[in-house]
């Protein structure tokens, strides 16, 4: 399958160009915090419950909260129906997502509790773990959970010998490598990194830089989204707004 033609990718993007990204917070009623994202054809929802008491009690940690992220692919989110329930891939993604977010959430403020983060992939088109993690980070902020920073994610990869950012489905399927990355932007450090395929060290460096820059763009969007949400909130509560 031809993935690059005349220096452009299948959907016309440049090598360092992200797909369209949309973000929204406070999209659910019951959850304490929530977020919705569209990223290319991906559609993802994230919700936060807690901090709440952890049961059974012997799992409680008197020094900090337990963070528990659950990544789930809806049966209809992919072309060939996915059987409900966690498979090994979902369990692994849940684990690395939990670890990435644990680096920023101030868990020490809520001993003996659990904070649950649920990520639902409603439509999947490559890069879902990056979208899910980015949305989860927004949902935590929306829930008012204190964090040292946001987590922003983006992937890079290699297709037809070229290093490009933010693979879409066809690029993921027929490409040579995928490298999802998540960062804590203020420190500029990596909290999620996975990779599979074939890369030399130099190619890795290039892919790393593209993914990093992509994540920084995502971070700006996250901040704007949360700012917008706060403005709306201030506006709604204030006297000078006619809406």
């Amino acid at each position: 399958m031809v993935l690059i033609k005349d220096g452009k990718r299948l959907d016309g993007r440049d090598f360092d160009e992200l797909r369209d990204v949309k973000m929204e917070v406070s999209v659910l009623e019951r959850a304490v915090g929530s977020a919705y994202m569209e990223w290319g054809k991906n559609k993802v929802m994230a919700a936060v419950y807690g901090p709440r008491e952890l049961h059974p009690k012997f799992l409680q940690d008197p020094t900090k909260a337990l963070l528990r992220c659950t990544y789930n692919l809806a049966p209809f989110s992919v072309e060939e129906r996915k059987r409900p329930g966690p498979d090994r891939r979902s369990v692994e993604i849940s684990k690395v997502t939990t670890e990435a977010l644990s680096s920023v959430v101030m868990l020490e403020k809520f001993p003996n509790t659990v904070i649950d983060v649920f990520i639902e992939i409603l439509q999947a088109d490559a890069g879902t773990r990056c979208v899910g993690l980015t949305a989860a980070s927004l949902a935590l902020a929306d829930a008012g959970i204190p964090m040292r920073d946001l987590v922003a994610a983006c992937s890079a990869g290699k297709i037809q010998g070229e290093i490009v950012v933010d693979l879409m489905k066809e690029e993921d399927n027929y490409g040579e490598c995928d490298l999802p990355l998540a960062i804590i932007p203020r420190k500029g450090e990596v909290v999620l990194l996975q990779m599979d395929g074939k890369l030399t060290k130099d190619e890795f460096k290039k892919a790393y830089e593209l993914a990093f820059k992509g994540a920084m763009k995502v971070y700006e969007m996250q901040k704007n989204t949360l700012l917008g949400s706060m403005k709306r909130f201030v506006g709604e509560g204030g006297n000078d707004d006619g809406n």
Partner: protein
Amino acid sequence: MMEIEAYLRKDYITNLINEGKRIDGRGFDEYRKMDIEKNYVDDKACGSSLIKLGKTKVLVGISMSVGEPYPDKPQEGVMTTSVEFRPMASPTFESGPPREEAIEVARVVDRGIRESGAIDTKKLFIEEDKVWIVFIDIHILDHNGNLIDASGIASISALMNTRIPKYEDGKIIYGEFEGKLPITCVPIPCTVAKIGNSILIDPNLDEEYAMDSRLTIATTDTINAMQKGGNGSFKEEEILSAIDLSFEKAKEIRKLIEE
């Protein structure tokens, strides 16, 4: 288990109902605002609909695959309905296999569609031992009451916009389609709750806490499915008037989703 707050809320709602009022100001025979976004999972699912019924949000996706028919109906396609109470939707939902509440929703929705013959399964025959399997997957995203109606309405809406993928040389070509899923009628479930001596339609979450029992009636031009739930009881006349109300409301909702 119910806590003090739940009891107080139940009392409050019941008193309100006894005074002829609902907490959100609706009439007893009035649904919450219903908003249906068809083809929500536009690129991957064969059909889908996202319903917002008040603050309740349910997403239904339809997947099509090829499999074996039931031995007693070798010439007919198969439908199967699953509900997942995603833990995102409520603090009381847990990860894991569906519990009895979710199974009940799935089975009541399934019966309404199946018994009305809404899917023309005879047209889903491919060749000997091969028929289309229609998967109805109901994903509860935000639970604010009346999951049966939201699920049932979103399901038939999703089925109505479902396309059948191309099937060639024993393989499904996803992303290419051969035609629409044949739908013969539009079954709509309507649920009433009984609180005290009042019967009211489309209970929201608070009203579900307060209700003694509920009755769901799925109709097309006939009744196709009924399900009583809850620990209370119904009088005959209550059931009969609920039937009338169900036929009437189903007509309105049918218009909405046939748009």
